[in-house]
């Protein structure tokens, strides 16, 4: 069964203090690994899709990377507005009868000014 584990559960940073969030996964044939941002009381907002090991994607202060077993979301010089819960999800190939998206529990990021 596909599994997604995110760490840490919660992370508190000072503004400008760079760090990384981890997403470890097991999936039968990776179709895509996804990162989402979720603000309190709202639905998740799509950030990135990564398709194969070695791939990287960037958006403002966020950079996502992918290996065969895990993905990292690097946050460079974060600002208070980056505070949110970050969700990781994987989607397997249909040939493995498993093409819905499996989500991790998320990392709750707080950035203090």
């Amino acid at each position: 069964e596909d599994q997604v584990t995110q760490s840490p559960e919660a992370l508190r940073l000072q503004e400008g203090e760079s760090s990384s969030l981890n997403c470890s996964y097991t999936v039968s044939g990776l179709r895509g690994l996804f990162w989402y941002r979720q603000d309190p009381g709202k639905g998740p907002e799509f950030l990135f899709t990564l398709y194969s090991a070695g791939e990287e994607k960037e958006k403002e202060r966020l950079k996502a990377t992918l290996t065969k077993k895990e993905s990292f979301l690097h946050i460079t010089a974060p600002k208070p507005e980056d505070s949110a819960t970050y969700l990781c999800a994987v989607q397997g190939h249909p040939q493995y009868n498993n093409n819905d998206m499996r989500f991790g529990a998320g990392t709750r990021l707080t950035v203090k000014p």
Partner: protein
Amino acid sequence: DVKVTQSSRYLVKRTGEKVFLECVQDMDHENMFWYRQDPGLGLRLIYFSYDVKMKEKGDIPEGYSVSREKKERFSLILESASTNQTSMYLCASSRSGTAYGYTFGSGTRLTVV
């Protein structure tokens, strides 16, 4: 700019009531999904649909049913609401084919008393 609309943000229902949660998307997406989100458990898939009048069970379908009579609308039905169905319900949609990120609605916080 709203793309996935859920009919209610907050809902309070009594035990045993039949509850309808409505979701409409305006992006002509083929795929639609219903998740529930609970603290510590993350997002869990209830039902999904890849086409009109088509439905598939997710991980936790017990106590729920769905309806998709039109491409843009996907309804979640709680046949007889129970207190353990108190949760945040999230609807999402996506294009079919190569892995695409989901577009989520803002969620419906349902309380069953």
